């Protein structure tokens, strides 16, 4: 069982009062416990079982505008005492930073909404095994599949965030996830692909048959790939990749990147950065949402925000420190976005595929080719050539490149948004990018 609220609270209070006693002007503490149980299968037999029980505490002490932090997994009072003493000693010799402070009291969350993000259901390992057996049965039906690896993870977490301004709250969360990675082989090549499901509630995850079949189909259709020539071509990003473009946008509008001047979107507030059909929301109170939260990692209430309205950048993601630096109020985004998504476009998936007679449809990218300072984007990719709305053949060993400043203004979205992850996008088309191949 995950540690209860009372236990976590008692540890948090112990730390806060000790920090105060040592002379800290302010302090904040997070205590969290997370228990995960994973069962993995490979080629229809049990491969691994893994139980993880992690308890962690992190403490920040302030002496007016000086600050330092410690973290530990050892929650014995004696150890905490030593660490807090060390932390406070460090705080005292750390230089003053005028922007260091706890969040403004009036911004702290007052009421915790029930977001339905905790399902107390327990799924025993033998039930996980049954799920995986069925999944792998369907994943390996196709003869070309030579290897399947799948796993089921159940997670239960609980935490308390407390600070010396009297904030003390936290809640339990749960998640259930399953994944399947398949490898297919023919005379000349091997390919792998996957499918994945993650939900707050056990009864909402994809059924094993569907998961196995999709993983298998995704993999087999990648065989016999071609490399195409280097050219300018319209690119369609599958939903699972399109969300990465949205994540890149999010990292460029975090207040730390803005205040440090290291974002290509600095000074772009109230300017048009996307095509005028684009709206972007971040919604923390989505019921059962994977990214849902009542408050951010500092205790600040988070509300739904429209980050981009008809293509115009309206908000940054602001935490207390960088907010003070930018002379803006925290909007409860310390720790990043919550449930971030593009609003649906006007056309359906099939219409999107047919806008241009020739498209490159990307299902996977590799590499870390996102530069937030310049907006340059260049990654390795695999996918399919699509002509007149039809998938012609798989494509691999190519790169796709562009600059977000141009890419954002050339986005067209389909209307197939679904909330499968914390960050979600409908299928996305971007015109004018360059493919490098042969």
């Amino acid at each position: 069982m995950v540690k209860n609220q009372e236990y976590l609270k008692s540890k948090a209070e112990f730390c806060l009062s000790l920090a105060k006693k040592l002379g800290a002007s302010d302090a904040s503490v997070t205590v969290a416990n997370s228990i995960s149980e994973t069962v993995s299968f490979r080629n229809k037999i049990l491969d691994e079982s893994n139980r993880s029980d992690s308890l962690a505490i992190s403490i920040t002490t302030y002496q007016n505008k000086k600050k330092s932090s410690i973290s530990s997994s050892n929650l014995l009072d004696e150890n905490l005492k030593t660490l807090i003493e060390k932390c406070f000693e460090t705080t005292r010799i750390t230089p003053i930073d005028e922007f260091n402070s706890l969040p403004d009291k009036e911004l702290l969350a007052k009421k915790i909404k029930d977001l339905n993000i905790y399902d107390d259901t327990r799924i025993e390992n033998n039930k996980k095994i049954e799920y995986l057996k069925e999944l792998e049965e369907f994943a390996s039906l196709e003869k070309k599949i030579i290897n399947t690896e799948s796993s089921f993870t159940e997670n239960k977490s609980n935490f308390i965030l407390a600070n010396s301004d009297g904030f003390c709250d936290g809640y339990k969360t749960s998640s259930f996830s399953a994944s399947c990675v398949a490898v297919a082989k023919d005379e000349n090549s091997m390919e792998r692909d996957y499918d994945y499901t993650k939900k707050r509630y056990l009864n909402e995850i994809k059924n094993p048959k569907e998961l196995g079949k999709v993983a298998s189909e995704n993999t087999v259709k990648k065989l016999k790939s071609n490399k195409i020539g280097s050219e300018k071509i319209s690119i369609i990003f599958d939903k699972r990749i399109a969300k990465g473009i949205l994540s890149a946008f999010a990292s460029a509008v975090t207040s730390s990147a803005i205040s440090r001047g290291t974002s290509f979107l600095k000074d772009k507030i109230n300017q048009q950065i996307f095509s005028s059909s684009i709206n972007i929301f971040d919604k923390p109170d989505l019921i059962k949402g994977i990214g849902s939260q009542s408050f951010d990692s500092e205790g600040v209430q988070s509300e739904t925000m429209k980050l981009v309205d008809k293509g115009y950048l309206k908000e940054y993601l602001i935490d207390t420190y960088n907010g003070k630096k930018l002379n803006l109020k925290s909007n409860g985004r310390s720790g990043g976005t919550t449930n971030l998504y593009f609003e649906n476009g006007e056309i359906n998936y099939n219409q999107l595929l047919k806008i241009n007679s020739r498209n490159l449809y990307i299902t996977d990218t590799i590499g870390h080719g996102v530069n937030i300072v310049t907006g340059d984007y260049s990654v390795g990719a695999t996918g399919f050539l699509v002509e007149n709305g039809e998938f012609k053949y798989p494509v691999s060993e190519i790169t796709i490149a562009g600059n977000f400043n141009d890419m954002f203004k050339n986005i067209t979205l389909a209307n197939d948004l679904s909330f499968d992850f914390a960050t979600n996008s409908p299928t996305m088309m971007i015109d004018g990018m360059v493919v490098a191949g042969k």
Partner: protein
Amino acid sequence: MINFFEKSDLSRKDAENIVSDTLKNCDDGELYFEDTKSETILLDDNKIKSSNYSSDLGFGFRAVSKEVVAYSHSNEISKDSLKKSSENLRSTLKSIKGTYNHSIIKSNKKFYEDINPIDQKSLNSKLEILNKVNDYLRKKDLKVKQVTASFSGEQKSIEIIRSEGEALTDVRPLIRFNVSVMIEKNGRKETGVYGIGGRQSYDQYLQDDNWKNVCEEAFRIASINLESVPAPAGEMKVVLGPGWPAILIHEAIGHGLEGDFNRKKISAFHNLMGQKVASEGVTIVDDGTIENRRGSLNIDDEGTPTERTVLIENGILKNFMQDRLNARLMKTRSTGSGRRENYKHIVLPRMRNTMMLNGKQTRDEMIKSVDKGIFAVSFGGGQVDITSGKFVFNCTEAYEIYNGKIGSPIKGATLIGDGPSILKEVSMVGNDMMLDPGIGTCGKAGQGVPVGVAQPSILINKMTVGGTKL
């Protein structure tokens, strides 16, 4: 050495008994204790942005039979907690019987000293250097708009208890010093990053004001990028500089030679043992025994002493990198490559310091031989799909080559290639082998471990450059 039983109701004898009892019908397994002290001190935006200290303690208990691994970890070192883990392992493996293999090689060789780098340098002197870095760079050039500098250090102490009370220990220091600078000219911004580190005290790396050299290098890279032109797109010749660009070797073939992927036959290399996988003159080793290097280990995380493993010798595939599990299933021996990020993770076969050895040519010969191509000096990071063999890496410093001469610097581009075929495209191997500066972290299955790379300059006949200029 840390006494993991000091403040616990669990005695060494109890632990040994529980381990022997739990593993008696298993092929392998161990109880792994870990204590990590770490710190990060970060200067950013003209200020000391954060100083964090962390102390992490825990155990991971593993039982292995046939192909099945049962693992349980906790940060509560107590009799109760270990017994709970034991029950957990037994319930997974109850119907799978094995025979415990007691043999494990012992070695007293040490490749780094048992020190705590955090305590060896006072916080004040670390703060002083970070402030000096900031002043130095901002005074150096008015184009400098942002400076980030950091110290990170750790001391990780581990103890492995195997069945019948066999115990193995290691204490591993690790430090890194990093500088990142952003410069701006006419509205255009570029960054340069450089870092140094390894398994010694901070001062070993910072003597004679060596932090200045780190600053200069970060500034140089940023300045060059400020003048960069769009990179070409398409297939062309690529000259790689010595040292850090060897992450190409790491991504392109290193991962594909890890035992687990080959035992499962999902690596593009699994059926190529003894065959020619690279051009003649290409020799690649993975070495855990180089003194004080970031990827070096006295023993791996299963207790096996590390070694210098020849992976490819003169073009021929000779060995995979193995942990105990994959070695047993592939009927070979562990190469001391079993590693884990920390006690929360299972052991996997991983790289240590992966190096391509010297050849005979010079870099000038390589550049002169190229009509149209690029010269890549430094990379940000890379990734590989070990099944299809396709790998990428991102240039952070690269130049055009035209008619045998180095031209303009080019914007960060991704290079993509095919692992099993790329080494056959190596047409020249240089004589200027260099180790990387000690900054690499390799990710696999969600676990990051410190690694090193090294290589001389090499010429690759054909790779796809992911630029925007057609």
